[in-house]
């Protein structure tokens, strides 16, 4: 099956590159370790043979689409990646007409690290219930059968919620202590595309420069708020964190709240206005009397 998707992608890529429909293909190629995948930028038809797709293709390539906005490009996107693409279309960061989406019916990706390929599906893929791309011009791979989960996708959040406030503060403090403020999480996130992130601004200096727990906590809280109703759960942030902070827990908490309150999941339809950016006169959030 993997062979199949790779071939389909290569064939499509060759076709649209040689016809001049796009000038760039953003996809995956084998990494230097010989076993995992890394992003590939293919500009010539003779190089499309480099493209691969298999269960090591973990990156959300939507991030790269922002850098190349304005160009006519094609992007290989798993189902969850297409949600990110939709959010970027909704927020005017990429132009739908110029972006050829090679969607993949994604069987899920496995845990990977440099030189190592695990045999377990990543957690986000274990809880995934939408394996088909939400936006595409072409789809590779056979449709994946959606099976009932059998457990609550937000179970990890619920476990954390069950703790007392003190325990939760202690939990996060323990993690944030280790954060080195490298901003890898933010830089990997396709939804963090600000020209100058507020945590790096100096006038006003919203977040002080020290690498201390309060500053780091504020950074992460700001980011979580900025991602509320926009995070599509690709988990790039957590995967790129060098010290292993479980950022997904924070994002999932917000996703759960937004879904509960507004029945909204980001990136499914770019035409639907994001709930935190709009107001319905008849909406009742249980605030006030």
């Amino acid at each position: 099956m993997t062979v199949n998707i790779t071939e389909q992608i290569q064939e499509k890529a060759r076709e649209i590159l040689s016809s001049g429909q796009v000038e760039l293909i953003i996809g995956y190629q084998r990494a230097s370790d010989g076993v995992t995948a890394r992003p590939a930028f293919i500009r010539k038809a003779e190089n499309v043979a480099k493209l691969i797709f298999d269960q090591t293709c973990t990156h959300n390539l939507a991030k790269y689409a922002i850098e190349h906005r304005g160009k006519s490009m094609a992007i290989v996107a798993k189902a969850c990646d297409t949600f990110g693409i939709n959010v970027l279309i909704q927020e005017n960061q990429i132009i739908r007409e110029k972006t050829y989406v090679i969607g993949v019916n994604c069987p899920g990706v496995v845990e990977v690290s440099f030189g190592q390929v695990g045999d377990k599906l990543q957690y986000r893929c274990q809880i995934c219930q939408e394996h088909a791309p939400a936006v595409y011009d072409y789809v590779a791979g056979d449709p994946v059968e959606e099976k009932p989960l059998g457990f609550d996708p937000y179970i990890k959040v619920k476990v954390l919620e069950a703790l007392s406030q003190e325990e939760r503060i202690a939990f996060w403090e323990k993690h944030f202590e280790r954060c080195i403020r490298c901003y890898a999480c933010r830089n990997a996130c396709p939804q963090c595309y600000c020209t100058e992130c507020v945590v790096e601004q100096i006038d006003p200096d919203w977040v002080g420069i020290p690498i201390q727990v309060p500053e780091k906590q504020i950074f992460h809280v700001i980011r979580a708020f900025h991602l509320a109703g926009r995070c599509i759960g690709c988990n790039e942030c957590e995967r790129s964190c060098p010290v292993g902070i479980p950022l997904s827990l924070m994002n999932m908490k917000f996703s759960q709240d937004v879904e509960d309150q507004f029945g909204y999941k980001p990136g499914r339809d770019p035409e639907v206005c994001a709930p935190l950016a709009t107001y319905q006169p008849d909406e009742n959030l249980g605030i006030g009397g």
Partner: protein
Amino acid sequence: MARIGIFLCHCGTNIAGVVNISQVREAVKDIPQVVLVEESKYMCSEMGQGGIREAIEKNKLDRVIISACSPRMHENTFRKTVADAGLNPYLLEIANVREQDSWVHADDKEAATEKAIALTRTAVAKALLNQPLTPKRVGLTKRALVIGGGIAGIQAALDIANAGHPVVLVEREPTIGGRMAQLDKTFPTLDCSSCILTPRMVEANQHPNITIFTYSEVMSVSGFVGNFKVQIRQKARHVDSVKCTGCGICWQKCPDLVPSEFDTGLGGRKIIYVPFAQAIPNVPVIDMPNCRYVKHLEAAKEGKKLPPCRICEKLCPTGAIDWEQEDQVLTEDFGAIVVATGFKPFDYGRYTEFGAGKYPDVIGLLQLERLLSASGPTNGELKRPSDGAHPKTVVFLSCIGSRDERMGKPYCSKVCCMVMAKQAILLKDHDPEIQPYVFYIDVRAGGKDYEEFYQRSQREQGVLWLRGRVSKLYQDNGKVIVMGEDSLMGRPVEIAADLVVMATGMEANDGAVDLAQTLHISYDTHGFMVEAHPKLRPLETNTDGIFLAGTVSGPRDIPETVAQGSGVAAKVLGLFSKDELATDPTVAYVDAMRCTGCFLCAEVCPYGAIDKEPSRDGRLLAKVNESLCKGCGLCVAGCRGNCINLRGFTNQQVIEEIMALCR
């Protein structure tokens, strides 16, 4: 180095009675860059203001802090004061130590003093970052749009037009006139409603400065005060109004009759019709869904045959019938908009205990107006709907859809008590044998000559006013049995009535909420449009250049409605007396170096003030339309990357204020 002057107002004892002013003076006098602290009993008095001006000049102050009442009260006063002394008015900062302090913390003087110090300190911190700002000037179109051709709209249009400015009057129905055209006589003088209304309608129609678009609606509104762009849809009448002479042959000969909206369903009208004899314009419309020719065309599509009719077309002497006519959309420029779209009567069918609108001899106030009117469906002969008999016992039920939480209508509709008194007197007039009864909660007769009028209905006309509620109505043998109670006598009452009249209250008109949203103005939970201030700015909305007149903002009678129509004209004329408008400089601005063009700001801006402007690399970035922006700051709070800021209230200033509080 700035040179800051602080002025502490006592506001008589309003502030000084709670806040220890000398303690505040001590606490703020040594703040760096403060060169002077002064007090006054009334800072807003001529003497107080004079003191400020003098101090600015003498001490070369370049920042002024006034610790006084809310900026909503005297910001404009003090801005003028400092401007008179040569200082840019936006270098002034007001600390609200009255509404936000002395008034609400009168029980804890020590804490109030502490808070006054804190508020004054934050004002100093903010003022240090204030920048001189200058208003921009824009031109304006001296042409008014009046939406709604009831008496409110007609009055406003006439007054504006008489002052020499062009007015466009847009009315949804085929004629202007509104509800007043449907009334028989009007309280408390009992003059005939159409006799006083129709001259105004004619005057508006003949006025060289007034253009009337009937059968038309406002589709969209963009722009801002002085410079609105409005799309108006003129629905197809299917009659060419240039050719039509209003001879009336068509509506005399049209073969079909449907219930007349104007006669509240009690009489009939033709398919091609004018709503009433004095309609303006006197040009009919064809009610297409009910027209035989349209039905013929539709049947033909399904292969069936129906007679094509087209009698109107055959008989029209000028060939004015136009089956091909289509809706027209006009785009027009206006400087001001008056909303006068009126009300509608409450639907009494919602009261199941009163027959849910199913008993023919239970009617509403407006229906009785039509039955009493000489131009009504019975030519003024009082006949009840079921069998045409002359009723002898008529019972009124007050507060139907008013003062009734159950119906979601807690408010009083204001006119119904007087309408009941009027109609009861008119019933007696028609037939002295009629005995009117009125069940009421209490009688509200506030208004010139109103109480006398109500008394007259009792004393001279023998109308029986019963205090109490009616619990149930049912039909029995040609009568409507009214089961109520007389709460003054403390006993149940049962009356076998020939006719029962529901004193239906006033509701927001159909489409009012949609229109408010199109205009970007506020409306309340009942759909009435909201004034900028209920007492001091009753004719303005929160959007500059858009005004309200008449029952669109709440129940009122004709005198009040007409007064509002004239009042609103004064507001519009005030606006049109200027050749340029100054825009408030405290608006948002975008940092184009940072903006990512996500347009979250545009999504959250309630005033549509964010434009999309191409940057050098072709991407669209946000740009604030300074004439539209109200400086509400929502975009500033919304923008994730802090790329948009508010002049006179920057993020930096807010942070400085917080820092000052924490020090």
